[in-house]
């Protein structure tokens, strides 16, 4: 499968199955398009032993002449030689990856390697769009005890098999409302690393209200990643992220976040925002954060029931796609000026990214990644916490809902027919199960708006790679 698109003056061809990306001139772009069109009726290659042989020029010459009359034959012939080279080097019209190998791999051992620890089901903000229902997650306000958290870390170690790197995200609600337990659990984790031959990678996600120098020192010492929640411009942030009394949070958190980012050398953190129907010009929020000096930025679409007034609608999509194009050009401009920053959804690792197994197995929710409620209950991920149908067990007893785990294990690109023909399948790995469930009541469903935005982000990311490679 190939995917062709034009963006910012670049003609780009992605060979999906091999992962190759080509920047081509107009004649090559049009010829590859013709070949794709006829590939159902004329085999574009044959295999002879270990060698791939492209269809001879004589067999396609007349088709090119008929479909591309504006190009002269010498140019077509010359360009075809280059196309042949790509086909015969398995980087254009490459055959599908053998999904049976992936499926067999997915049916392997039961491993848990990452936990989202909900140390506080309580919050000191009243964010309008909070999927946790202002921190309570469909339940009561509750803090995780050290004993429950300790049991969660033990459960993680016991369930991780030979995996050495274990991830723990301190999440909420607002985790700093239970900072003593965060500190104790971090210290406990460190104390067992050598004995258990494990390495904990801790992350803290915070709204910043309680972030102070003492906590920041601790976080900088112990947390491999820090996620700082802020939506962008003051009026945008304060509309959706008010304090409990109704006043805005921007002025309180911004100085703390700027200090935190600087103290971490502008690395290993994200300022992380959510955009909604109310700020469809969200590129301005990203620009705002970049102008403030933040170098690691993630701003993402809200996940919300369609009847909420702030939910993204289908009618919003064209404007949002345009916003990503604007943002991609801005990212490039800043880079050229020597003031580059990372926009999370434009980051793509083409040369050293994950293997095909990872790309096709999704985020691992419900299998290798679980969320832990304050009382120790296990859920497939943070977005399912508090939903009775998705209770998987408890850290004291382990996973008891084995059928549910098996359902999540089989949830991937390979389980969604729509993903099979999608060029983005190796980049998004089938999307978010929680998103799919929210919109289709099925974890194997497809959230159309999310897919459309995801595909646009990938195109922008690839274009940025082409531009920064000097092609």
């Amino acid at each position, binding site marked *: 499968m190939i995917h062709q698109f034009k963006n910012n003056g670049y003609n780009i061809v992605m060979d999906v199955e091999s992962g190759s990306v080509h920047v081509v*001139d107009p004649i090559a772009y049009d010829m590859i398009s013709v070949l794709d069109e006829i590939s159902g009726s004329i085999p574009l290659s044959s295999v002879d032993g270990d060698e791939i042989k492209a269809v001879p020029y004589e067999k396609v010459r007349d088709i090119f002449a008929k479909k591309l009359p504006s190009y002269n034959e010498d140019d077509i012939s010359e360009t075809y030689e280059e196309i042949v080279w790509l086909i015969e080097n398995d980087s254009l019209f490459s055959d599908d990856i053998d999904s049976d190998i992936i499926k067999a791999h997915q049916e392997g051992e039961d491993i848990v390697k990452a936990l989202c620890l909900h140390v506080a089901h309580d919050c000191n903000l009243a964010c309008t769009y909070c999927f946790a229902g202002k921190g309570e997650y469909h339940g009561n306000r509750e803090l995780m005890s050290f004993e429950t958290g300790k049991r969660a870390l033990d459960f993680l170690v016991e369930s991780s098999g030979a995996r050495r790197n274990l991830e723990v995200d301190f999440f909420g609600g607002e985790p700093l409302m239970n900072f003593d337990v965060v500190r104790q659990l971090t210290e406990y984790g460190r104390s067992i690393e050598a004995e258990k031959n494990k390495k904990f990678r801790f992350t803290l996600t915070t709204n910043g209200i309680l972030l102070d120098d003492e906590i920041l020192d601790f976080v900088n010492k112990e947390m491999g990643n820090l996620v700082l929640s802020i939506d962008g411009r003051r009026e945008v942030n304060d509309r959706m992220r008010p304090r409990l009394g109704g006043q805005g949070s921007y002025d309180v958190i911004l100085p703390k976040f700027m200090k935190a980012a600087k103290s971490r050398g502008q690395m290993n953190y994200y300022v992380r925002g959510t955009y909604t129907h109310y700020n469809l010009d969200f590129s301005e929020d990203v620009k705002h954060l970049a102008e403030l000096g933040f170098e690691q930025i993630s701003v993402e679409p809200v996940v919300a029931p369609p009847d909420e007034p702030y939910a993204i609608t289908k009618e919003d999509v064209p404007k949002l796609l345009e916003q990503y194009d604007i943002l991609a050009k801005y990212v490039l401009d800043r880079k050229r000026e020597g003031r580059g920053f990372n926009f999370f959804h434009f980051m793509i690792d083409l040369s050293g*990214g*994950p293997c095909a197994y990872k790309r096709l197995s999704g985020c691992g929710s419900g299998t290798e990644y679980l969320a832990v409620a304050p009382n120790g209950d296990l859920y497939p991920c943070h977005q399912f916490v508090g939903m009775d149908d998705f209770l998987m067990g408890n850290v004291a007893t382990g996973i008891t809902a084995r059928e549910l785990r098996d359902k999540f294990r089989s949830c991937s690109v390979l389980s969604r027919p729509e993903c099979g023909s999608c060029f983005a399948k190796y980049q998004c790995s089938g999307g978010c199960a929680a998103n799919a469930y929210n919109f289709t009541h099925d974890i194997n469903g497809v959230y159309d708006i999310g897919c459309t935005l995801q595909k646009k982000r990938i195109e922008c990311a690839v274009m940025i790679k082409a531009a920064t490679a000097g092609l």
Partner: protein
Amino acid sequence: MKHIRSLQTRNLKKSLKKGGCGECQTSCQSACKTSCTVGNQSCEKAR
């Protein structure tokens, strides 16, 4: 080549031979929390 220039990419098919160690980051632990993206992550073995 005159008409086509290729970006340096990892061959996904070859990654089947040595991949699958499972040591890489879980995608939701990075920044997203509401969307799944793996293409921006790094292979632990390639670090």
